[in-house]
C-alpha cells in the first residue's frame, strides 16, 4: 500500500511510565531523599545548606559566595591542589554553588569509588581549611571576575533588573557574586564566622540518585554524618516586598553594541499551590518554549532575534515574571512593542487548541525529566527549595490535567500585568534612545551598571 504522506501519524495510547520511587529517612536533623537507579554504576549526591547570599551583611555583599568558593580550597590533611587531585584520581567530581537562598555542594562518582568520594565531601564540610592565603587568592579571583563581567551585557541586564525590581535594599536586589567595594572589605574572619554560625545548619538536606540501595545509603550517612551536630539555625530574616512598580524604561549605555539585551518584567507572588499549574501552562503558551507566542512573533515572524522567552521564576519569598531576549539594536523599540502586544493579547485568554497543546507538551515531556541522575537530583532538590511534597512530584500529571481555560484566563488576568513592568535595555544609547520616542513611555532613565540612576547636572 502506498504511503499517504499528507497524513500525520497519530498516537492514541499513552506510554507506561512510572515516576521513580522517591524514598526518604532522617538522621540527626538531616533529611535524606533518594532514588535508586541501578542501570549504570554511577551515583550523584547533593547537599543543601539553607542560607545563600540573602545572609550577606550590609557592606559585605558577596561574602557567602566567596565562602562557597573557599570550601574546596583545602580540607583536612589536603591542601587545595591535593584535594583536587584526590577527586580526580577517583574519577569523581566535586561541585559547589551559591544562590540567593542556599549553598549547594555535590559530588558524582562511579559506584566503586562512591565511599571514598563521600569521605572527601565530608572532609570539605567538616574540616575546611579556610586558610588566609587561599582566601586572598580567591578574593582576587572574584575581583578580576567582576571586572570581566563589565563586558557581559546579559549579566549587566540581569543585575540592573534585580536591583530595580527589589528596590535596592532588599537582599535579593544585589548579585550573588557581590560588589567590588564590599568584597575588598571582607576578611578571613568573616569567612570563618560564617562557617561557624551559619553554614553548619541543623536543617541539612541530602539528595541522592543512582546505583545504591537504601540500606547502603543509610550505612554511609550514619558513618559519615552520624556525629552531625549543626547549629540551631538562625531563622531567615523576612523582608517586606512591594509587588507594585511604575512602568518605566531604564537603560545602560554599552558603547558600540550591535544588539540590545532586553528584560521586561515585574515581581509577583511566590510559588502558590493554587495557581502554580495555571501559570505554568499560561507561560508555556506565552513564552516558555520555541513554539510559544513570543518566540514565534519575534523570531519566526519578525526576525528580530535568535530567540525570545518568558518565565515565572520563584525565589523563596517571592516570584518574578520576565521576558528576556537580545535583539538586533535597530529593532529595539519594535521588539518592546511586540512583547507588550503579546502580554496584552494573552490577557484576552487562550484557545482550546493552545491549552491542549501546552498540556500535552508538559505531560508527555515528564518521563524525560527523569532520564539521568542529575535530573533526578534536581527533582529532589525542588522538594526542598520549593517546599514540595513527594506527592507533588507524583501528582504532577494529574495537576496539569485539571487546569481549565478559565483557570488560564484568570491566571493571565491576575498575573500578567503589563502596566507593572519595568523595561531594562542594555546597549549603545545612540542607537537605542532615538527609537524610544515612539513608544510614549512616561520616563526613560539612564542607570549605571548597578542600576542606580545617573543624575545629570
Amino acid at each position, binding site marked *: 500500500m502506498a504511503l499517504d504522506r499528507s497524513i500525520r501519524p497519530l498516537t492514541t495510547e499513552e506510554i507506561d511510565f512510572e515516576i521513580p520511587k522517591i524514598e526518604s529517612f532522617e538522621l540527626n536533623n538531616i533529611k535524606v531523599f533518594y532514588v535508586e537507579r541501578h542501570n549504570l554504576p554511577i551515583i550523584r549526591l547533593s547537599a543543601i545548606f539553607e542560607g545563600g547570599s540573602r545572609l550577606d551583611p550590609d557592606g559585605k555583599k558577596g561574602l557567602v559566595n566567596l565562602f562557597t568558593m573557599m570550601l574546596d580550597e583545602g580540607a583536612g590533611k589536603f591542601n587545595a591542589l591535593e584535594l583536587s587531585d584526590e577527586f580526580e584520581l577517583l574519577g569523581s567530581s566535586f561541585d559547589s554553588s551559591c544562590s540567593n537562598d542556599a549553598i549547594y555542594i555535590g559530588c558524582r562518582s562511579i559506584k566503586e569509588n562512591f565511599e571514598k568520594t563521600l569521605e572527601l565531601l565530608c572532609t570539605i564540610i567538616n574540616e575546611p581549611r579556610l586558610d588566609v592565603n587561599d582566601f586572598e587568592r580567591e578574593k582576587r579571583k572574584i575581583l578580576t571576575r567582576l571586572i570581566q563581567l563589565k563586558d557581559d551585557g546579559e549579566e549587566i541586564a540581569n543585575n540592573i533588573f534585580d536591583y530595580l525590581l527589589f528596590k535596592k535594599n532588599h537582599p535579593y536586589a544585589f548579585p550573588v557574586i557581590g560588589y567590588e567595594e564590599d568584597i575588598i572589605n571582607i576578611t578571613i574572619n568573616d569567612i570563618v564566622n560564617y562557617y561557624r554560625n551559619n553554614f553548619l545548619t541543623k536543617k541539612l538536606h541530602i539528595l541522592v540518585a543512582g546505583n545504591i540501595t537504601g540500606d547502603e545509603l543509610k550505612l554511609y550517612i550514619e558513618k559519615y554524618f552520624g556525629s552531625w551536630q549543626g547549629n540551631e539555625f538562625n531563622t531567615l530574616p523576612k523582608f517586606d516586598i512591594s509587588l507594585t512598580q511604575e512602568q518605566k524604561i531604564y537603560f545602560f549605555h554599552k558603547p558600540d553594541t550591535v544588539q540590545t539585551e532586553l528584560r521586561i518584567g515585574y515581581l509577583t507572588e511566590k510559588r502558590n499551590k493554587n495557581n502554580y499549574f495555571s501559570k505554568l501552562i499560561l507561560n508555556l503558551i506565552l513564552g516558555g518554549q520555541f513554539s510559544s507566542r513570543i518566540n514565534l512573533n519575534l523570531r519566526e515572524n519578525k526576525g528580530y532575534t535568535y530567540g525570545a522567552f518568558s518565565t515565572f521564576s520563584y525565589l523563596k519569598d517571592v516570584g518574578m515574571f520576565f521576558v528576556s531576549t537580545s535583539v538586533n539594536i535597530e529593532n529595539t523599540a519594535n521588539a518592546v512593542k511586540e512583547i507588550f502586544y503579546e502580554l496584552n493579547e494573552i490577557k484576552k485568554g487562550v484557545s482550546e487548541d493552545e491549552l491542549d497543546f501546552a498540556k500535552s507538551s508538559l505531560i508527555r515531556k515528564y518521563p524525560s525529566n527523569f*532520564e*539521568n541522575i542529575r535530573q533526578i537530583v534536581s527533582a529532589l532538590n525542588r522538594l526542598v527549595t520549593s517546599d514540595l511534597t513527594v506527592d507533588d512530584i507524583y501528582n504532577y500529571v494529574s495537576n496539569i490535567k485539571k487546569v481549565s481555560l478559565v483557570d488560564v484566563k484568570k491566571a493571565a488576568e491576575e498575573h500578567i500585568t503589563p502596566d507593572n513592568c519595568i523595561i531594562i535595555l542594555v546597549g549603545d544609547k545612540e542607537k537605542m534612545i532615538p527609537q524610544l520616542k515612539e513608544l510614549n513611555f512616561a520616563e526613560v532613565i539612564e542607570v549605571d551598571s548597578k542600576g542606580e540612576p545617573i543624575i545629570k547636572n
Partner: protein
Amino acid sequence: MNLLNIEYEKYKLNNGLEVILYKSKNVPLVALNIWYKVGSSNEVKNKTGLAHLFEHMMFQGSLNVPKEMHFKYIQEAGGNLNGSTSFDRTNYYEKVPSNFLDLTLWLESDRMGFMLPSLTQEKLSNQKEVVSNERLERYDNQPYGLAWEIILKNVYPEMHPYSWPTIGYLNDIKNYELEDVNDFFKKYYSPSNAAMVIAGDFETNRIKDLVNTYFGDLPSHKRTIELNYRTSYDIKYKLIEHRENVQLERLYLAWPTTKIFTVDDAKLDLLADVLSGSKSSKLYKEIVYDKELAQDITVFQFSGKYAGHFMISATAKPGVRLSTIKAEIFNILNNVKEIKPEPQVLLKSKNGIRSSFIYSLQNIDSLADQLNYYNFFLNEPNSFNFDLNRYAEVTEEDIQKVAQKYLTEDYIELQILPNNKD
C-alpha cells in the same frame, strides 16, 4: 568494558540511506538522529555559512509539514529536537516518548525527500535575519567572540575549508538566494549522503517496516562527495593584534596538528588535560594558581575530518602583560618537552575520561548522536571501547613526544586588546 559494548544493527536501504538501530528499554523514550555528510567544509570562500543557514531552513516545513509545525508536533508530543552544523557534518534529532516514533520518521522523511516544494522567499528572508541575529548574539556581540574565526583564518591555509567559521560571514549570509538553497539541497541532502540512528525503546521488526515505508522510496540524487585536502602543512609564526571593547587582555596561541582519530589525536587531548585540565595541571598551577598572572587558562586539541589544531588561551589579570604570560607558558611547554609527566598525572586524566564515558551512556539522545559520530568517523558505531582504549594506551613518553612534535616555534599568536589602551 562490557558496559561500553553497544549492540546495534546496521543496514542500508536501496537508496543508500544507512540505518543503525540500538535497542534500550531503560526509559520509555526513543531518539532519532540523522547525520548528513555535509558541513561548512563543503562551502567555498565568499559563500560561507550556507550549510548552517540550510540547517535552519530544514525547520521551516516541507511538502506535508507547514511552517512552524515541525517544532510544534514534537513539542506537543513532549519531545525535544534540534539540529547543529559543524565543519564536517549537519545533524538533526528528536527525542520523544516511544509511542511517537512514527511521528519523527514522518517528519524527517518528509524533509529529507520533499523540503524544496515548500521553500519560499519569505521563509528564507526570515531565517537570514534569524541567523544574522544568531551571529550577532553569539559572536559579534560577545566579548572575545571573534577570536575563534581569526584563529581559523590564520592557522589554516587560505583555501582550506576550516579557514572560515561554520556560522559564516555576515555579508555572505545576507547574500543568499533561493537558488543557493535549492542547489545545496540537491547536492547534499540525499538519502545516500546520510546515516540515521534510532535508539531506545522500540520493537525491531516494526521499526524496520516503518523505516522502509517512510524512507525506502525517497530518491537518491547524488553520490557521496569526498573532499580532498592536505591534512598536514606548515605555517610560519604570525602575530595578530585585535582590538575590541573588553576590559582584560587575552592571549591565544594555536598550532596546526592532526585530524581526528589519528594516533596523535588522543595524545594531544591528554596533553591538553595535563596542561590545564585541573587545579594542579601544569599551566593552571603555575600561571593561574601560583603566580596569578592569568584569571583563566584553557587548552584543547580541536580535530575534524580534514585537519586539527591545538590551542592555548589565557586571560591576563589586570596589569599583567601578555608577553609575561606567554614567556611563562613557553617555560612550562619546554619543561614538558624535556621531562615526561609523572605517572599519577596521566592516571588522573585517564580515570576522569573513563568516568565520563560511563556518564555519557545515560541519555538516549546523546547516545544516539555518539553512535552516529563513531559511524561517521570510524564506520563502526560500537566504538566506545576502542575510543576509551585510545586514551588508556597513551604513555608518559607519548605526552612528551607530541609536545615536541607539534608545539614548535611556528604558531599563530592572537592578542585581543582593549580598545581604550595604547
